[in-house]
């Protein structure tokens, strides 16, 4: 072997290193094999539980969509903007006009757009409420700012409890108390947002560079002042990013909650798909898609305007 050229100490090191590499490879192979076996077994079990129909029924996947088509493509846009349908026969299916929301004698907001505004409003309001509370709580959950373990323990458990229940479960409980409507939806989404954003926020705070904090401590600043001037400027860009991301998620959440009585687009969507109103359903799907794309673009633009490209680059400033 060419190992002779190495000093005895280095030869020992090399042996150790090769031992480590071997151990790592053995564990990796075992891990991969276990995952593959578990996955195959689970798929086999699921297929059996499905009376072995999975592959048999797969070709029929698109049959529902095939029968669920509007009379003509223009119907979708008539449903979207509440324009009278030529197929109107007195039934709800083609009745697009009776749900118009009139602002003046002639100017109206189409029903689906109105419902969409309700849904987006629920999302935005609950992000603001939940985000504000999460912002206030997150500093008390950060190990680098709060020495008292009890405080951190309590705040973190509160966040976990709020995060543990899906919005739809909280909404179900709240509609029983607050009755059906957007208020219950807002409360449900806000509560979940506190837990979810609070967790993300305090992790950002814990990853902050503590050198500025030390600098402020050395001039005799109070805890609040240190948080305000040493921590906040560092973490704010990431807070903004996470809050905007949460807004997008909350639009989806409040749509779903609408379907269980929270009001908004989710409710009309559930009704139209349940009553086999194809044109209305497609109209809502398109509206939702456009809304999500718009919010995504807008929040991306807003983030760049507010924080530049520095978010998610925490710690780079340390160099």
């Amino acid at each position: 072997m060419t190992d002779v050229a190495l000093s005895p100490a280095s030869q020992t090191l090399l042996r150790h290193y090769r031992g480590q590499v071997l151990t790592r490879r053995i564990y990796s192979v075992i891990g991969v094999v276990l995952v593959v076996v578990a996955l195959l077994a689970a798929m086999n079990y699921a297929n059996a539980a499905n009376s072995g129909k999975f592959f048999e029924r797969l070709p029929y996947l698109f049959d529902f969509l095939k029968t669920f088509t509007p009379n003509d493509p223009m119907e979708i846009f008539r449903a979207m903007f509440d324009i009278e349908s030529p197929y109107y026969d007195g039934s709800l299916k083609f009745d697009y006009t009776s749900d118009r929301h009139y602002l003046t004698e002639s100017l109206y907001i189409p029903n689906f757009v109105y419902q969409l505004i309700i849904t987006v409003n629920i999302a935005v309001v609950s992000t603001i409420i939940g985000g504000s509370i999460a912002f206030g709580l997150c500093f008390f959950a950060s190990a680098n700012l709060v020495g008292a373990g009890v405080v951190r323990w309590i705040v973190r458990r509160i966040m976990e409890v709020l995060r543990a229940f899906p919005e739809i479960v909280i909404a179900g409980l709240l509609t029983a108390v607050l009755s059906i409507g957007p208020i219950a939806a807002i409360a449900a989404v806000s509560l979940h947002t506190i837990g979810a954003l609070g967790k993300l926020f305090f992790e950002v705070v814990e990853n902050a560079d503590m050198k500025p904090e030390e600098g402020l401590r050395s001039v005799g600043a109070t805890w609040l002042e240190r948080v305000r001037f040493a921590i906040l400027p560092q973490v704010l860009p990431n807070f903004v990013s996470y809050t905007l991301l949460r807004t997008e998620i909350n639009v989806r959440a409040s749509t779903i909650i609408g379907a269980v009585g929270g009001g908004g687009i989710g409710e009309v969507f559930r009704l139209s798909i349940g009553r086999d109103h194809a044109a209305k359903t497609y109209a809502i799907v398109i509206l939702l898609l456009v809304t999500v794309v718009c919010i995504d673009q807008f929040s991306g633009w807003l983030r760049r305007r507010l924080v530049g490209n520095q978010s998610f680059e925490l710690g780079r400033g340390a160099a």
Partner: protein
Amino acid sequence: MLKISNVSRRFGDKVAVSGVNLEIPQGQMVGVIGRSGAGKSTLLRMINRLADVSSGSIDYGGLRVSELRGQALRNWQRDCAMIFQQFNLVPRLDVITNVMLGRLNGRNPVLNLLQVFSPAEQLEALKALERLDIAATALQWAQTLSGGQQQRVAIARALMQGPKMILADEPIASLDPRNAQIVMDSLRDINAEGITVITNLHTLDTARAYCERIIGMAAGKIVFDGTPDELTTDVARTIYGADGLKEAFSEAMTSTSIAPVAPLRLPRTPTNAQQAP
């Protein structure tokens, strides 16, 4: 021979490097000095192609470095190793693997991603570490090492690349005098093997002690190019723009060494001696 012809680099409306012409023969040890923002780092980064030139060209032998792309560019970057002020190692990876990362280019990409290195490469990495006297740290995470040790790991990684040239961007600016000396001695050792070393420095006496040629930059232009002997205090004052200062330009301010290091002329191979200016 590295040839830099009329190279400029602009960031928006700010000119970092402006019309630089330079010829550096193979095997030279060159120190680049100048104030912060004079364009030293940008110049080095353009040679390695971490930054692109705005205009002008960089050639090495018959290779038009400034226009390389894809695999050819990566091959050039392998041949022209870079050492950074902040070391730029992978912090949560053991030292020996950090060194072997210098070999990534030209290996089987699948083996690279699986982090599989041949026994010969492991041996070579350990030898490089031994040469820099830090073999004992081979199995530690890079982030557990001191600054001086980390910089030596970075040099070992550069050696692992089998470079024709080493570019060091303020390699000793974050180090204490003792470690600075070890790092500079290592670079001089490497240079003695015929590898070109171009290093940005903040300390005049280090540049004088270690470099056979010193280049002074100010506001993106080369304002001095000569031997250490020609770098008088007056010239240094011009480079650093200290003319207007009332006090005498204090070289002690820019000094890091514990004791004056005697300028050491290295034994050169005949080919290097011919190429030297």
